């Protein structure tokens, strides 16, 4: 059993049957053993051979009866009964009863045995199942262990990598530090050198100047015809201390002038700003105060407007008054107050504007949805969000539906589905689908046209080839017949061959192409039903039909023409086969068509 459990779970059923048979074998053998034990226990008084052959013989009937009686009593079956102890004769009724009981007991035991066997079988199979499961799990464990170890290895490697990278980083950092130090050192060195050089340069310059002065450069001179007056017409002044102070004064004066000018401009700017501020204030107050009656005048927005407190407006007016007074003053306090009031008003204005905004949006929603209660903005936005989500979901749904539809259309399309679609989809979608279909059809039509062109070209090629072969055959025949001495026969055969050739040439071509066309047309019939169900009157399919119809009669006609001479159909067929082969060899595209076309012909 253990060996069997090793096998894969796929073969379990087969094994089970085997197991059962084998177990039965073993069981039966054990029973036999048991029987033999029984039998071997018996011959206390008999020879074993006799016992084996027969339990009871003429001589030992009473003993047998006795023995059976004993046995029966020991088994607890109607002990008193089969034989009277004194006479040792068989009392038939109890004996039969005992036998019946024995039989019953035997049957019962048999049944229980069977049940046990079945149990055993079941348990063994479950055991096997468990064992296989166990084995599998063990395998899994093994695998996982291996995986774990692999991962460990990987981790270790990564750790190593990290370590190396860190060390790299560290070294790089050190390098950077070093380089920075070097740069700093260089910079200091450079600046030091520069300074040194500059000092030297200065020294040289000094020396040069000194030398030049010492040399009393004669050339250094000004040669003026006559001196000029100053440009401002004044006379030249001597340098005095007074001049210095006056220069200082002038300088400060000019600075002061500049500052004054700047202050002036700032003052102007400030006053301008103040004016603007005042204007703004007035406008603000104007906007805010007459708003109330205005709002009341318009009946639609009445209810929310009432929320605006009139008390606040009055307060604003007050503040406005006081700030207006303040504007004329220009001390710190006034400024603070001014800014405060402005801020206050600004805040109010902002609040108001926000309110107005929300009102406007509300009004819009109200317009849209008739007599709907005023909804707070958050709720509104939430609603919007929800609706957007819904729209999105709807779109998705539509999309999936479209996809499914497309699939369905591609796979199979009949009138039922068309009707279903008619029921299911809105006109719009159908239109769109039609559009798409038409596009698709157009493409397909183009493709077909191309294919047709191609096949035509192939036909032409075949024609040419045929004529060539014809020529060749004729030539060969000529050659051959010229060689033979039978001149009168030659003529006949020549005509015969010619007729055969004439047969061969055209139908063979048709053979290779018409089947393809026929199959094609059948497929198109399928398609065309789909088209007609969705969009009637597609030009491409009709065109295709037309072309197909055009081709089919042609081929038939040619066929008929070719088959008019039934001189040697067998040869002709042979030739077909040949020609087919040749065409196949030439053109792999036609090969597939040919194959398809084989069956109808």
């Amino acid at each position: 059993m253990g060996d069997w459990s090793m096998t894969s779970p796929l073969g379990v059923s087969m094994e089970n049957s085997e197991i059962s048979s084998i177990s039965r074998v073993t069981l039966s053998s054990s029973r036999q053993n048991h029987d033999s034990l029984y039998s071997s226990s018996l011959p206390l008084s008999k020879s074993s051979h006799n016992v084996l052959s027969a339990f009871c013989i003429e001589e030992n009937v009473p003993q047998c009866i006795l023995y059976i009686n004993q046995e029966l009593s020991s088994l607890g079956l109607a002990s008193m009964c089969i034989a009277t102890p004194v006479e040792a004769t068989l009392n038939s009724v109890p004996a039969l009863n005992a036998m019946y009981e024995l039989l019953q007991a035997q049957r019962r035991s048999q049944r229980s045995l069977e049940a046990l066997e079945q149990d055993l079988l079941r348990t063994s199979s479950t055991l096997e199942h468990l064992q296989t499961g166990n084995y599998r799990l063990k395998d899994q464990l093994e695998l996982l262990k291996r995986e774990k170890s692999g991962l460990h290895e990987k981790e270790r490697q990564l750790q190593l990598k990290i370590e190396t990278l860190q060390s790299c980083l560290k070294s790089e950092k050190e390098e950077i530090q070093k380089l920075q130090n070097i740069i700093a050192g260089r910079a200091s060195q450079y600046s030091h050198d520069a300074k040194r050089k500059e000092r030297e340069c200065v020294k040289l310059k000094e020396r040069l100047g000194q030398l030049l002065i010492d040399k009393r450069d004669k050339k250094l001179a000004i040669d003026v015809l006559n001196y000029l007056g100053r440009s401002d017409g004044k006379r030249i002044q001597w340098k005095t201390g007074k001049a210095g102070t006056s220069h200082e004064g002038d300088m400060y004066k000019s600075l002061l002038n500049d500052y004054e000018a700047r202050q002036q401009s700032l003052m102007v700017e400030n006053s301008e700003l103040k004016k603007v501020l005042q204007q703004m204030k007035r406008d603000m107050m104007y906007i805010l105060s007459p708003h109330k009656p205005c709002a009341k005048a318009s009946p639609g927005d009445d209810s929310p407007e009432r929320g605006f407190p009139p008390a606040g407006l009055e307060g604003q007016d007050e503040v406005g008054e006081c700030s207006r007074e303040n504007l004329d003053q220009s001390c710190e306090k006034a400024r603070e107050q001014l800014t405060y009031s402005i801020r206050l008003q600004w805040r109010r204005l902002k609040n108001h504007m926000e309110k107005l905004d929300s009102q406007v949006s509300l009004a819009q929603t109200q317009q849209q949805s008739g007599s709907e209660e005023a909804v707070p903005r958050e709720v509104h936005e939430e609603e919007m969000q929800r609706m957007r989500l819904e729209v999105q979901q709807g779109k998705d749904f539509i999309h999936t539906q479209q996809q499914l539809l497309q699939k369905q259309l591609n796979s199979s399309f009949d009138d039922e589905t068309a009707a279903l679609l008619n029921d299911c989809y809105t006109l719009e979608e159908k239109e769109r689908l039609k559009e798409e279909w038409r596009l698709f059809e157009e493409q397909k039509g183009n493709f077909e046209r191309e294919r047709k062109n191609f096949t035509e070209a192939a036909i032409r090629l075949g024609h040419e080839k045929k004529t060539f072969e014809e020529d060749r055959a004729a030539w060969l025949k000529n050659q051959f017949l010229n060689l033979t001495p039978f001149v009168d026969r030659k003529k006949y055969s020549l005509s015969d061959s010619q007729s055969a050739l004439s047969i061969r040439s055209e139908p063979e071509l048709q053979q290779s192409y018409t089947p393809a066309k026929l199959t094609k047309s059948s497929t198109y019939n399928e398609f065309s039903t789909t088209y007609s169900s969705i969009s009637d009157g597609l030009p491409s399919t009709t065109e295709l039909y037309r072309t197909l119809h055009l081709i089919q009669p042609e081929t038939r006609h040619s066929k008929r023409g070719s088959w008019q001479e039934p001189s040697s159909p067998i040869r002709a067929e042979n030739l077909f086969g040949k020609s087919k082969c040749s065409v196949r060899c030439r053109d792999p595209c036609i090969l597939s068509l040919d194959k398809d076309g084989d069956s109808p012909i």
Partner: protein
Amino acid sequence: MNFSEIFKQSNQLCRISPDGRYLATCVQYRLVVRDVNSLQILHLYTCLDQIVHMEWSSDSLFILCAMYKRGLVQVWSLEQPDWHCKIDEGSIGLVSSRWSPDGRHILNTTEFHLRVTVWSLCTKAVSYIKYPKACQKGIDFSRDGSYMALAERRDCKDYVSVFVCEDWHLLRHFETETQDLAGLEWSPNGCVLAVWDSCLEYKVLLYSLDGRLLSSFSAYEWSLGIKSLAWSPSSQFLAIGSFDEKVRILNHITWKKITEFEHPATIYPALAGLGLMCVSTGPLTVGGGPMDHTTIPVVKPDLDRANPKVGVSSLAFSADGRYLATKNDNMASVVWVWNMQKMSLEAVLEQTAAVRCFQWDPRRPRLALCTGTPRLYLWSPAGSVSVQVPSEGGFQVHALSWHSNGDSLVLIGKEHLCLCYMDTEDKSTDSNIWTK
């Protein structure tokens, strides 16, 4: 638009006098003074050598001609043609010469920046100013001509000296908090001095006339810093162009950044919310569609080399202060015009060639630019124009300068020049030309 005939010049030395009446040009060692209107030669002066530098005095009475190689400066008078003045700096050499604002003193910077020599034409007196610093812009006069700021370097530290130009009295002398001062510039009202550090460090310091540090500004660190700087005519804004291709605008009250103008390579006119000027004339092309964008050709600079060609190198406010024109060096063919009222991009002027020079009309918001081609480009808020300079030899405009009344323009080529007269629509402004 009319053009004059073409005249010769050398070293691109052509200057219209500050009063707008004369045009002085140098041809080799000759100085020619013409009447601006008639272009008749009024005076002809001959110098001792080829003229390297030429400058009008502020009162338009004298012309200074410098010959640096010889260390010579010659001054000519318009009123007295036979008056002459020659200043010889001797063996010490000469690298720069300029008028003082009063037109009676000449400041010569000697070689190696040993000193600045101040020569007076009134008294023949000579004064020396020692330790001038050799830098981008080491000397600046205030607009009214009363003060001069001079950058100095002593003991490896930067100083600024403020002189009163009237008598060269040292008014203030203070150390600046710069590593390596690169330049200084007075505000147009003469009350604030902007001092900026060299490109290694982004730092602008603002000093009051009396030497107080008003504020300092630094946009970033560790990267190449300031490349150019310009005051708005009202002294209200200070525009700072830097190597990061941005212009930052500081205000004059808090000296903090108001805004920064980026120079992106791709412009979305619609996204930026600006009405970019559509230019149909000539090679000026500007995208004006609602959603389309313009990609500006960018030259990738070699950042490893010194002075990389990147960043805003030139800035100019229009005369009314409403517009700011900028040029980013790695987009050399583009001039950007910014609206200072909206603080936004107004127009992008893309040329086919690199822009050589641009200058605002001193009277109107009108920008003239040239690209080294025989064309002159003009932009104004109303639109743009490009004009071919009529000439046989292919006159290529390398530089230009406006007449002070904004009615004419001197176009300077390699060795020639010509005048371009604008169509004056309002004659009323013509009468009042120079009102300074």
